[in-house]
């Protein structure tokens, strides 16, 4: 230790880099592992949430504004019925345009289902009318159907609503699950920090008491923990999200996730998102540490 030479440099500093609170290196390591794992999971939850939101929007947007009317009729009656249907549709509020598809159009539509070029002569091909809806004022499908029935047109109106609703509902459900997963990982980080800080404070009881007796306010004590856990949280976030981003970039299996998130391809996006996640992890850890210290100190009285 110090030798009694009396030649200690007069400019030596008193505050060493040593912390006022003797933190255990091992608890820091555990904290780092937990936050890194949670940040890794949070990245997938976040990607899932963003991707499903976008997919749902694509599906609904892609199908919105369109409807079809199928006209069942014999060959000789078809033209009359179609023109009757077109008149009704064009006269309906919320419908912008109605157009009868040619046999060629119908054949193109059916190709994926039948393979090759279907010979329509062998099938009773229905007349199909493509309807363009006013996206801001879509008509009530039951009202349109009622009007068609009123004219005995033998026509069936379909705005793809059922399929649209189900697809959108499924995407929204997956999306909200992802948001929940993200929320839970954040809660898990906060909870783990709260627990680790509370345990550390029991170990540091004497030190904290000495600080308080020397005139430290609660927020001074809180700052010591906040600072450490902000850095631990940030570093854990850096590691965890770094691994997740590497997985996004590297795994072919995740190409579809990437495809649904075109912003990931923007050059500025990656460092920005990465920095955001790192700061968020640090911030969550900081707040949880502060809450733990303040709660514990108040409780001790």
């Amino acid at each position, binding site marked *: 230790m110090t030798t009694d030479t009396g030649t200690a440099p007069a400019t030596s500093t008193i505050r060493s880099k040593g912390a006022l609170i003797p933190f255990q290196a091992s608890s820091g390591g555990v904290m780092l592992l937990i936050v890194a794992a949670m940040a890794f999971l949070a990245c997938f939850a976040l990607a899932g949430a963003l991707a499903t939101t976008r997919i749902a929007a694509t599906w609904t947007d892609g199908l919105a504004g369109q409807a079809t009317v199928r006209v069942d009729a014999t060959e000789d009656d078809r033209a009359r019925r179609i023109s009757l249907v077109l008149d009704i549709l064009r006269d309906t509020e919320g419908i912008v345009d109605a157009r009868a598809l040619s046999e060629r159009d119908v054949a193109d539509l059916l190709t994926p289902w039948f393979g090759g070029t279907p010979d329509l002569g062998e099938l009773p091909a229905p007349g199909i009318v493509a309807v363009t809806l006013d996206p801001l004022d879509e008509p009530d499908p039951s009202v349109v159907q009622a009007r068609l029935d009123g004219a005995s047109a033998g026509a069936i109106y379909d705005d793809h609503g059922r399929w649209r609703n189900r697809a959108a509902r499924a995407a929204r459900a997956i999306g909200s699950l992802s948001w929940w997963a993200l929320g839970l990982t954040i809660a898990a980080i906060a909870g783990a920090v709260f627990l680790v800080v509370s345990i550390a404070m029991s170990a540091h009881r004497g030190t904290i008491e000495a600080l*308080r007796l*020397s005139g430290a*306010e*609660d927020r*001074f004590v809180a700052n010591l923990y906040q600072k450490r856990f902000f850095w631990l949280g940030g570093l854990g976030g850096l590691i965890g999200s770094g691994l997740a981003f590497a997985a996004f970039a590297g795994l072919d299996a995740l190409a579809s996730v990437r495809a649904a998130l075109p912003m990931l391809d923007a050059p500025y996006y990656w460092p920005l998102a990465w920095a955001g996640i790192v700061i968020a992890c640090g911030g969550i850890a900081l707040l949880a540490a502060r809450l733990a210290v303040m709660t514990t*100190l108040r409780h001790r009285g």
Partner: protein
Amino acid sequence: MIQFENVGFRYKRGPEVLQNVDLEIPAGSFQFITGASGAGKSSLLRMLYLDAEPSSGRISLFGRDVTTLTRDEIAWFRRRIGVVFQDFRLLDHLSAAENVALPLTVAGVRESAYRDNVTEMLHWVGLGDKMDVRPPELSGGEKQRVAIARAVVASPDIILADEPTGSVDPAMAERIMALFVEMNRLGKTVLVASHDLAMIEQHKLPINTLQGGTVVVGTPKKRRSA
């Protein structure tokens, strides 16, 4: 500055340690508290450094009823009170100098601003060569001197010392008492708790004797003749 009105004190579910204590310590005075071991000297000081509240009666400190202070106010009051604890309460993971600097560190003073002050204090208590030594490697007397340096370094308004000469030789005890006298001359209120009557009697200063849980005012001579 310090006023006790009919103060009673007990530890949780324990018997009454102090009762009917009336005490007035004006600003700028130097007084002793004496009494046998277990008489309640340390408990009385604890209430003064706001680590315990009276169970009855009223203690006023700097003009405030101590039971009305918020946690922040308690911290700010403690910055105006330097305490030498009977058990020192040094932090083993900090050097002697860091321990002495603690009241300044927690008050937000920068190291560059207090460095000379702390160095001087440690030299004064004869530990100029032990600045970087941690308490576990110090003797009892050396720890006591670190605790004394810490109590006075921030120039507090009140100095409370609990058996401050308990672990040092007579020569150092005299030096420590001289330091308190000097602090008092600079206008600080000093309250020293000690069972060492021989040391106390050397000073012609007011003595409060704790006996049977309450304060018997008077000099040791009066007490002896009683």
